[in-house]
């Protein structure tokens, strides 16, 4: 009896927190987005989807996230594949990769501007030898945001991918080689299928991180590139809470759909 009391007491204490501070606020936001002046109405959504600004914002969020994830997964795979057999190089890569994880993306972007911007150090150094280092031309557009995202979130993808690779039975590769498999054939038929699960999970996590973040857009977007999170923030600053709630709901539904799709794909992969 006492055990039950303890259990349910603890359960209540722990469980009430996400309900009070996460579920309830979200529910409230979603509810408020479908009420206009006390009456149930979808007018906020009509405004959202007929506005060029907001729909561009929605498109940009997806566009930036998708392209960044593609770049990150390809580069991440390449990095892990090429370093995983060399202990010292692997340690160095892991160490460098752990830096952005607890770091502020905003400051990182300021640094990127000082390095690769129009008057950046790297740009200047390259100009001195007569080469136009092209990053400064697109740094402040959505392609610059993609670039910054790819650099900053690459480590978040690499670290779990290393774990996936480390879980492969080492005898498997040897067995494959002994049967004549080598190089790309070995990668395609033996190695990659083993890490596919971790690879796709990494893609999902990166996508959500990038889709949901705002600091990078604030730092290099210069107010001209809109994403959902940026629009939410700016609507809030202008005290347009109704629209802010609407944007929040759209953002939530989007991430839910993406996560759901990925889970379906992951479910279909044989471990």
């Amino acid at each position: 009896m006492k055990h039950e009391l303890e259990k349910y007491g603890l359960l209540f204490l722990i469980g009430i927190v996400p309900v009070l501070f996460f579920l309830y606020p979200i529910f409230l936001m979603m509810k408020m987005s479908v009420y206009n002046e006390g009456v149930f109405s979808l007018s906020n959504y009509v405004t959202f989807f007929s506005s060029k600004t907001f729909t561009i914002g929605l498109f940009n969020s997806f566009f930036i996230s998708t392209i960044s994830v593609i770049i990150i997964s390809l580069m991440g795979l390449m990095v892990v594949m090429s370093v995983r057999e060399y202990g010292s190089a692997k340690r160095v890569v892991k160490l460098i990769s752990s830096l952005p994880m607890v770091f502020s993306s905003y400051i990182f972007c300021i640094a990127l501007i000082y390095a690769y911007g129009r008057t950046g150090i790297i740009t200047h150094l390259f100009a001195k030898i007569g080469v136009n280092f092209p990053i400064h031309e697109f740094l402040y557009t959505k392609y610059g945001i993609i670039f910054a995202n790819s650099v900053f979130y690459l480590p978040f993808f690499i670290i779990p991918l290393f774990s996936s690779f480390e879980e492969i039975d080492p005898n498997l590769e040897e067995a494959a080689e002994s049967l004549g498999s080598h190089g790309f054939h070995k990668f395609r038929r033996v190695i990659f299928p083993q890490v596919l699960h971790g690879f796709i999970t990494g893609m999902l996590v990166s996508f959500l991180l990038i889709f949901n973040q705002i600091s990078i857009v604030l730092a290099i977007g210069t107010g001209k590139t809109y994403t959902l999170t940026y629009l939410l923030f700016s609507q809030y600053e202008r005290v347009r809470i109704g629209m802010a709630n609407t944007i929040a709901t759209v953002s939530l539904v989007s991430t839910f759909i993406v996560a759901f799709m990925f889970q379906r794909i992951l479910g279909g992969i044989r471990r």
Partner: protein
Amino acid sequence: MRNRIFSAFIVLFLSILIILPLSITFLLSVVPAWSEAIPNEFGLIWWKEILKPIFVKAISNTFIVAGLSSICIVVYGVMGSYLFSYYDFSGKDFLFSMILSPTYVSCTVVSLGLIVAYVPLRNTLWMMILGNFVIVSPFVMKYVHSSMSKISKDLVEASYSLGSSKVNTFIKIILPLSKHGILAGIILSIGMCMSALSIMLMLYNAKWITIPIYIYLENTTGTLGIAGVFSTILIIVTLLTVYLVDYVS
């Protein structure tokens, strides 16, 4: 042999890509006036600036907010891990997913939710702590739980059989054995709370401005030397954090 060269190249490439911006933030702090692309004058005037009371306040604010938030986060993380490791109940998986769900969602959305749901707390210190709490606790909970769940149940059973109460077992057996996870959680929590900008953006209180918020505000008005100093401090603290987490785990 070819592979070795290629992998060395990859490491170099990665270093430049990631370490370069970090070193630049340090440069920012030692350049009095960064007007041309490549600075040629160096000085420590910005570092002397931070000794002024307003900046000292910002630093202490950062530590206080991060500290208070982390206390709540870690206590919650430990309690939650205990619940999940040693009790069974229906809906366990569901509850765990619910606790982890803030990680799927944008900080701005969480912030807006808190603002909308708890109007009286708007822009207070408590809101800042609450925001940190909601967003950071899933991460810490994961770390602590993975450490605590690895403790062999036999040890706990042996402790009870020797007459130890639940509380005593928790303090003398379970906590010490999950030391690694808890320590990693503390460090992670402090690190994330100190460098958090997106969490604070919509929630901050003007009297409790933290370093990241100050940098953001200053960026839009132009005195970047201070930002450079703060960034460097943050980088050093972050590096220490990372090193400690690595050392501990």
